[in-house]
């Protein structure tokens, strides 16, 4: 397996894996860290975050932490994808690379609907 072949596999696994883990991180509020913008880049690592403000009543941002959580998960799955035996590849449909992120996007809309309906 050459490097471009390995990167191809990684790239096609990373997108869908990120989409899945991002939706989970967003829905379950699993942020690797939280940013308090008024303190600029103050982090709390590996916390299951509630939608609360900090002790000073400052806004807390989880979006960066959700992305970091999703990136870590996708990175792990992407590395596993490189190791999949070639004989399994014909069984993996290439359309998952766009279908899974599309469903993930729709789920993000669904989870945001309660606020959208206000």
């Amino acid at each position, binding site marked *: 397996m050459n490097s471009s072949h390995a990167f191809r596999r990684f790239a096609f696994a990373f997108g869908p894996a990120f989409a899945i883990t*991002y939706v989970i991180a967003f829905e379950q509020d699993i942020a690797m860290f939280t940013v308090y913008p008024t303190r600029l880049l103050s982090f709390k690592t590996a916390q299951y975050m509630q939608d609360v403000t900090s002790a000073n009543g400052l806004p807390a941002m989880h979006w960066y932490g959700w992305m970091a959580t999703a990136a870590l998960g996708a990175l792990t799955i992407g590395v596993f994808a490189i190791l999949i035996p070639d004989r399994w590849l014909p069984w993996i449909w290439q359309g998952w690379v766009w279908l899974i992120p599309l469903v993930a996007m729709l789920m993000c809309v669904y989870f945001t609907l309660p606020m959208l309906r206000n």
Partner: protein
Amino acid sequence: MATALLILHGLVAMALLGAITHQAVAIWVPLPTRPESFIGRLRAVSSDSFTNAVVVLYVLSAILGGIVYLYFRVEIKPVLEQSEHWQTISLFDIKEHFIAIGMALLPAYWVSWQEILDREYSSSRVALTMMLTFIVWYGFLIGHIANNVRGFGL
């Protein structure tokens, strides 16, 4: 500082919008012969030549947007919340989700355009390009709505 970053973010987003729209039109309705009209020339561009530009502009735009988002959260969102612009806020939240998912698709998008002669990748290439085009247009429009929410009378 925030205003300068926002303008820069808007300019990069405009360039990205142009690049990915060119590419999307060229693969959706390709033109086999030499075109005469403006629309014809738009359809006839070499679509693969935009790939690297799209990737770089998307990442740059997302980074700038990520920085501007800090100011938005502190200075703009509380105002929107107080004035009960819940739809604008939620549409903006959806934009952030879409941008994050879109950024993760960039490696597969890039690979699918490198393998342009490989038919195996053609459907993925079209689908990923169309998804990124939708994400970029959605982000651009919602960004403008959020930025000019009072002007829209929402």
